[in-house]
């Protein structure tokens, strides 16, 4: 059930993201890219397999069974991807504003078709 919910959520986010990415207005493109990056972040997270109530960090000394713990690497990857995605989206927004100011149009080609 958990897998199905997450898969549907990723699918919805990706679908809306791709649709918005193909739209002609720059703002729609930004929102589309953001939705896509959310979907990708969830996807990376799910690649560590979905676990409930398992800690990602090994506790105690001695031999431990890795199967009792969640995989920490996808979580670390997600953090990096979130930070990078946030920065690049902010940068894209600045360019969007510059394009809006220079061309006085919010069409992605800088002029109305």
């Amino acid at each position, binding site marked *: 059930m958990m897998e199905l919910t997450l898969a549907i959520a990723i699918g919805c986010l990706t679908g809306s993201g791709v649709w918005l990415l193909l739209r002609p207005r720059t703002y729609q493109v930004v929102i589309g890219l953001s939705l896509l990056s959310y979907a990708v972040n969830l996807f990376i997270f799910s690649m560590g397999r979905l676990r409930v109530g398992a800690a990602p960090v090994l506790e105690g000394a001695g031999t431990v069974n*890795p199967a009792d713990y969640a995989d920490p690497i*996808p979580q670390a990857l997600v953090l990096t991807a979130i930070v990078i995605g946030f920065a690049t989206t902010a940068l894209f927004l600045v360019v969007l504003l510059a394009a809006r100011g220079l*061309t006085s149009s919010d069409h*992605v080609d*800088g002029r109305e078709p």
Partner: protein
Amino acid sequence: MGFSQHLLILPILLPMAAGAILLLIEERRHGVKAGINIVATALLLVLACGLLRLADTGDAAGDAMTHTYRLGDWAPPFGIVLVLDRLSALMLVLASVLAAAALVFSLARWHKAGPHFHTLFQFLLMGVNGAFLTGDLFNLFVFFEVLLAASYGLMLHGSGTFRVRAGLHYIAINLAASLLFLIGVSLIYGVTGTLNMADLATRIPDVAAENQALLAAGAAILGIAFLVKAGMWPLCFWLPSAYMAASAPAAALFAILSKVGFYVLLRLTLLLFGEGAGPLAGLGSQVLLIGGMATIAFGAFGVLASQSLGRLAGYSILVSSGTLLAAVGLGDHAVVSGAMFYVVTSTLTVSALFLMIELVERAQEPGANLLTVTMEAYGDDIEPEAEDEEEVGVALPGALAILGICFGCIGLLLAGLPPLSGFIGKFALINAIFNPDGLGSATGGPDSIGWILTALLILSGLAALLAMMRTGIRTFWAPLEVIVPRVLVVEIVPIILLIGLCFLLTIQAGTVMRYTDDAAQALHEPRSYIEGVLPGPGQTSGVSTP
């Protein structure tokens, strides 16, 4: 770990430190900033040449040509590694040569045309060097993002409507490609449980049959991200206009960016899906071959159809990308060796062409000097006196003659005609297609794909020759009133140096081909790479797949 091993991290640390320092210096102090950038770039060039020697001679043990650097001294499947072999050393040198040329050119005027030029320049170099050196996929993503973020800034350097519009497309496409990159990386991690390239190479042959499709899908999605960067048809429509819109020094430096895509594809195809990869061996090589040939054809038509020199240069990048992708698709040892020679000469040529364009266009239409327009658009931060002062710089006597000679040399290099190194690169490729086992061992000619590729290589050279001749006649011979452009010495010197390097490549072709042969040999024997990175045979099983 001797001191020489620590050199491996310096191509990343040096630009990072220089970029950070440059960020703190006030924008008006152009001289200081330029000085720091020159020192850092010169050091990087020396360092890259040193690493090239290191990669070529090996360490005290003799045979180990793969040098690794463990960050924080963690053992490789868990820790992060940097890996230096002949291929990555060659690409490092190429990147720093382009950087030096672009930087010298920019000192004439461009570096004052917008804020933070020098900072972005160094950060771009950091990302490029990191991508060439890294030994695991996720760090590859991080360095890709570093170089992309810096390239977004450099792409917009000088501002202006045209640049911002082209930059918008460039950024959107690369952001989407980065997301595909992440999906591919995480799928591969989900199946194999590792991101270290060497560790991946040992695990891929053992992937369970039901997971192989998933792994192939992950690798294919990852490949698309690199193909966007390398500009394979039909993922390349953004490339000519983006490179055309970028300012001359930025475009000259961008010539290395599409080669980053080529480098990663070559590395991963041969390491992960080489002959020893079990059922997945040769994954995607057909796509690369056919796609590469389609890219050559598209690029050649584009070169012929281009009215402006900037667009011509953009399509020339596509032609060289297509040639390289097709060579990776063939994957043969001799072809890869030829491709490595070709990558050096074609990158130097296209970079010189991008620098040349601005000078030639100055001869065509002095009124439509793009720079003055953008300078006005950029506005208040630039003091007009500063520009006037720069105009008093040493102008070049006999500018038109020197420009014409340089233009002719670039034309010969692009077309792949003797006596310059463009010819040797193409000859090495075609020879390898005809005689896979070396010159004189003909085995009845290549198959039909080989014939088509050979024809495309020669015809694309013809297209480049026609287009360059047309532009050359229009620029240097046809005008009734010859306008002698004002060319500063610092602007022509980097172009002459780049062309001079191509001359040197022609004379020293034997030495360079020996090097690329060894590099291709090493790529075809992934064992040495894997053993160089991982602590020892049999100790590779770390984290099991969850």
